[in-house]
């Protein structure tokens, strides 16, 4: 009887244990746990690791901590589980995650705006530099550098569109290397056109030439390289203006044979050629005394090879202004016809870079 009673108690105990173990319903897992995990993934996708690595690491550490608390709770017996504190903790994690997400979005949007500003800045700069290189016929190295910079800028745009701001910024930092190199290549030419003393000297030559025309009642020619104009003066007054073409190095002052530069100085017509390779031509007396002195100085200072000659045969000729001369000044054939008949041997010809300090080069290089 006693054994039957004990057996009954034991069976009841086992039944209670089994019902506790398998029959009790577990407390529901708070939805915040899964939400926090999804949020972490979204933060990663948004670039938290890239833009806010420290904050992201901290967020992940807090999330890990929360998960450990969740795991500890899950490890308890079903009827001891209580997710209240876990839920609270995960709500706070989600809230912090939302703040970080907002921070990332703001950061990205400010980055995007800053890069867009930089793109516009470099686009303008490249446009200016390209305009200047075209103006002074200074292609080659500087244009190559500008093309490289343009391609980089293109890549920056593509990367920005893809939201790859860090990579875009990395490329943006390289662009000034190429723009600086291009600027350096053209600076020696440009600086002369923005130099007040140099322009004053050129202006004085022009004034002398006009004065001679006025005093002697003759024609005189003045050529402005920057304006790409040849102005014929009669009795000290502008009589005709013609557009001109120059050579590859037309904006340089001629120093020696083969440099493709157009000389600057006060010359005169020494020969009229009714039939020339380039329609009709007016030969000038390059090199004059100043050119010879300059050439001798350059040789003495080792600026040019000892084997090179000073050059000559600088003309005002026809053939059209679109062509690239070897240092001569080219006119359209109909204009050449007109000029050829108006001037005589001995007519003064003054060639200068520019006569106004406020010219396109001086104003443009201020922005570089």
């Amino acid at each position, binding site marked *: 009887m006693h054994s039957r009673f004990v057996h009954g108690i034991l069976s009841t105990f086992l039944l209670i244990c089994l019902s506790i173990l398998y029959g009790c319903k577990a407390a529901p897992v708070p939805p915040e746990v899964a939400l926090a995990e999804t949020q972490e993934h979204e933060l990663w996708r948004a670039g938290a690791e890239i833009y806010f690595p420290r904050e992201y690491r901290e967020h992940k550490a807090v999330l890990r901590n929360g998960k450990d608390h969740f*795991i500890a709770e899950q490890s308890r017996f079903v009827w001891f589980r209580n997710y209240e504190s876990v839920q609270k903790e995960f709500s706070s994690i989600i809230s912090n995650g939302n703040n970080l997400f907002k921070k990332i979005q703001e950061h990205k949007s400010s980055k995007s705006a800053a890069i867009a500003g930089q793109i516009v800045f470099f686009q303008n700069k490249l446009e200016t530099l390209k305009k200047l290189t075209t103006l002074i016929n200074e292609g080659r190295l500087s244009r190559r550098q500008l093309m490289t910079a343009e391609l980089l800028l293109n890549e920056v745009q593509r990367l920005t569109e893809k939201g790859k701001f860090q990579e875009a910024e990395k490329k943006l930092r390289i662009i000034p290397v190429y723009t600086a190199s291009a600027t350096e290549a053209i600076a020696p030419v440009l600086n002369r056109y923005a130099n007040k003393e140099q322009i004053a000297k050129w202006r004085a030559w022009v004034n002398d030439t006009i004065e001679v025309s006025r005093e002697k009642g003759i024609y005189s020619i003045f050529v402005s390289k920057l304006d790409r104009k040849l102005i014929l003066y009669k009795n000290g007054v502008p009589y005709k203006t013609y557009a001109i073409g120059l050579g590859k190095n037309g904006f340089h002052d001629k120093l020696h044979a083969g440099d493709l530069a157009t000389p600057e100085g006060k010359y005169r017509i020494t020969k009229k050629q009714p039939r020339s390779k380039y329609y009709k031509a007016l030969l000038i007396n390059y090199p004059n005394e100043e050119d010879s002195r300059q050439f001798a100085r350059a040789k003495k200072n080792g600026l040019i090879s000892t084997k090179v000659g000073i050059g000559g045969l600088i003309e005002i000729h026809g053939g059209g202004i679109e062509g690239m001369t070897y240092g001569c000044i080219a006119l359209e054939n109909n204009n050449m016809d007109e000029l050829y008949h108006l001037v005589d041997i001995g007519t003064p010809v003054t060639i200068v870079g520019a006569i106004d300090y406020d010219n396109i080069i001086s104003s443009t290089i201020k922005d570089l």
Partner: protein
Amino acid sequence: MKRLLISLTVALAMMFVLTSCAKQPTQEMNDSKAAIDAAIAEGGEKYAKEEVKKLNDDLTAAMDEIKVQDGKFFKNYDKAKEMLAAVKSGADALKAEIPARKEKAKNDATAALDAAKTAVSDAKALLAKAPKGKGTKADIEALKADVAGLEAALTEADGMMTSEDYFAAIDKANGAKDKAAQVAEQISQAMAKKK
């Protein structure tokens, strides 16, 4: 009394079986980790960044499940094993897929580079038709330098192909192609002006 002793022994034996027999799935854990590492070594970070992140997250979730079971009186690692097996098979599948993705990126980059090379050589061919020597216009000279700059970009893109940086090569090639088309247009305009 004898029956009571038998019942107690059976109950104790069952508890022993339930609490002590389940062991951490160490082998599965190592296999899953090794499978992810293998996928990364194949180029996962470059060609399947998102998937690699997902696999790592899933592995963490499996490890968390193991921790949950570790803390339980009655351990059951079946769910963790399932999760680890899914991670492993996902990583294996990803590893197997990466060469195809790499190949696709390579093919895309090759096609982009070929298109860019064609565009640049078209521009160059146009330049060759431009008047030479003294008759060459200033803008043609400048455009020649532009084409030289484009050729330098193509050389750079070739280098990217060699170093298997296909996505960067695609960007570089597409940029060069677009620019080459613009330059070709400018060359045509400059030549038309001359006529």
